[in-house]
C-alpha cells in the first residue's frame, strides 16, 4: 500500500502531466487508503493546478497542456467527489463567466473557469455567445461578486462595453467587479470601457479575481 505522501505526489504529478488514467488511479488509491477526499481535491488538486498555472505563465505550458491537466483533475474529482465532506465554513465568492454575444471562442474563458474553480471560487459558466441582457440578468440573479467576460475577436469585443453600460444604466455597476479578457483586449481599452481589470492570462485572472473580491468586500457599501 502506498503511503499518503506517495499518493498525494502521484496524484499531483498526474494532474501536472495531464495524465487522466494516472490521476484516476491515484484517486482510487486515496479512497482505499482513507485519505480526506475533500483535501485531495481542494488542497492537492488545487496545488497541482497552481503548478500548471505557473508553467503556463512561464510559457512552458500552452493551452493544450492546461486542457489535459484539467481533464486529469476532473478524472480524479469524479472518483473522489462521492467521498467528499464539503467544508461549509467559508462562503466562496461567486463569479459569472461568459463569452460575449457573437463570439464562440471559449477556450480562454474555459481556462479561466478551470483556474478559478481550482482556486475555490463558485463559478457560474454561461457559456459562449451570451446576449448582454442575459449576462446582466444572471449577475443580478446570482448576486455575483465578479463578472468575467471574454472575446477573442476584435469584431465582438465592443459587446463588453455594452454590458458594462447596461450595469451602469441599471445602477448595479458598484455591486459587481468586472474583469475582461481575450486575445485582442488590451488593458488600456479595458479600463477605458470601465472594466476593473484585464488580467493578462487565465492564470493572472485568479490573482486579479481574489484582489477584486477583497476590495469589493472591503468597500461593501453597496451590497446585493
Amino acid at each position, binding site marked *: 500500500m502506498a503511503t499518503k505522501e506517495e499518493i498525494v505526489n502521484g496524484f499531483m504529478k498526474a494532474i501536472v502531466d495531464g495524465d487522466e488514467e494516472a490521476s484516476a488511479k491515484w484517486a482510487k488509491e486515496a479512497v482505499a487508503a482513507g485519505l480526506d477526499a475533500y483535501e485531495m481535491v481542494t488542497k492537492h488538486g488545487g496545488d497541482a493546478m497552481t503548478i500548471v498555472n505557473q508553467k503556463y505563465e512561464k510559457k512552458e505550458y*500552452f493551452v493544450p497542456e492546461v486542457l489535459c491537466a484539467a481533464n486529469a483533475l476532473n478524472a480524479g474529482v469524479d472518483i473522489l467527489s462521492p467521498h467528499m465532506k464539503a467544508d461549509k465554513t467559508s462562503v466562496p465568492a461567486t463569479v459569472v463567466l461568459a463569452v460575449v454575444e*457573437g463570439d464562440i471562442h471559449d*477556450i480562454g474563458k474555459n481556462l479561466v473557469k478551470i483556474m478559478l474553480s481550482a482556486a475555490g471560487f463558485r463559478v457560474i459558466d454561461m457559456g459562449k455567445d451570451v446576449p448582454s441582457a442575459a449576462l446582466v440578468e444572471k449577475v443580478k440573479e446570482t448576486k455575483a461578486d465578479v463578472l468575467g467576460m471574454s472575446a477573442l*475577436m476584435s469584431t465582438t*469585443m465592443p459587446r463588453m462595453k455594452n454590458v458594462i453600460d447596461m450595469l451602469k444604466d441599471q445602477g448595479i455597476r458598484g455591486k459587481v467587479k468586472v474583469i475582461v479578457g481575450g486575445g*485582442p483586449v*488590451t488593458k488600456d*481599452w479595458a479600463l477605458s470601457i470601465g472594466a476593473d481589470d484585464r488580467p493578462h492570462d487565465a492564470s493572472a485572472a485568479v490573482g486579479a479575481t481574489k484582489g477584486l473580491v477583497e476590495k469589493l468586500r472591503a468597500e461593501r457599501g453597496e451590497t446585493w
Partner: protein
Amino acid sequence: MAEMTPRKRALLCVTGNKRRADRISCMDTLTTCTVDQMNAVKAPFPEANRDPELAFKLAAAAWEVIGLEGFKLPFDLCVEAEALGCKINWGRIDRHPSVETHVFNDLKDLKIPDDIVERGRFPLKHDVELRLRKEYGDYLPIVNQVTGPFTVAGHIFGIEKFCIWTKKRPLADVREALMQISEMNIADCKKALKSGTDVVCIADPSATSDILSPTFFKEAMLPVYQNMAKKIGAPIVLHICGNTSSYLPFIADTGFDAFSVDAQVDPGFAKAIVGDKIAIVGGVPTITALLFGTPQKVKEAAIDAIKKGVDVLMPSCGIPPRTPTENFKAMVDVARCMVYV
C-alpha cells in the same frame, strides 16, 4: 508617366518589392465589411454571405465606398467548415457567421470529398471573383481568402478536442490531418486563380501563440504551410491573430510572401526578426484606432506603421463591422499620400 495600377502596386508591395512601387498599397486581405458599406450598397449581412448578387456588391464596396485598393472574398471564415457539413449560425448585419456544430469525432474520421471545392459556397466565391475580374478588368487585385488548416480543424473537430490531440496523439497523425485540410485549401486556390484572383490570404486565426507552443508551430504548422507555399502558385499572405512574436522566426521560413501581424505585434519588431524573408503587412490597430479612434488617430497609427516598415498598409485584423467609414477612409488617405522618393 502613366499611374501605376493598384493591382501592380499591390503585387509589388505584397511580395516585398514596395521600393519598386510608386507608393505603399492599401489592399486589405482581411475582412473588410462594415455596416456602413452594407447600407451604402444595400448588401447587408447575413444575406450577402449567400447571395451572389449581394456578395458582388459588398465585395466591390471595399473599393467603391472605402477606397481599399483590392477586393477580397469571402467575407467569413465558414466556407470550408460548411462545405464539410458543419452547421452555420448566419449571424446578422453586425455579426459574422460562425460554426455551430462539428462533424468529425476523431482524426481518423476525417474525409474530404474530392469535389469539395464544388460544394457549399465555394462555387459562389469563385463566381463572384470571376465577375469582379470581368467588370473591373486588371485595374484592382482580387484576394482569395482561405480559412487556414488549424482553424478549419478547430471547426470540424472542435477546438478543445483538437488542442488535446496535439498532446495526446502522435504528432504525425495530427500533422497529417492538417496536411489533408491544406490540400483542400490548395484546390480552392487553384480554382480561384483560374477565376482571375491574384493573391491568396490564408486566415488562420486559431493558430495563435496564445493557444499553441512555438514547438508545435514549428513541427506541425510549418511543414503544412510550406506545402501550401510550394503548391499554390500565387503571392500568399498569412494572417494569424494575437501575439505571434515567438513564431516569427518560423513564419519567415514558410515560403509565404507576406505575414499580416495583429495589433499585439509591433511591425518594426516583426521586420527586425524576419528581415527580407517575408513581407510584413498590417499595422493599423482595428480596435483602438479604426473602431474607437478618430480619423486623426487612424492617420497617426498609419504613419507610424509605415515608418516601422510595413509593406502593405492595412488593418491589423478583420475590421469590426461598426467601424466608421471616416476612420477606415483615413487609413486609405495616408497610403495615397505616401510617395516613395
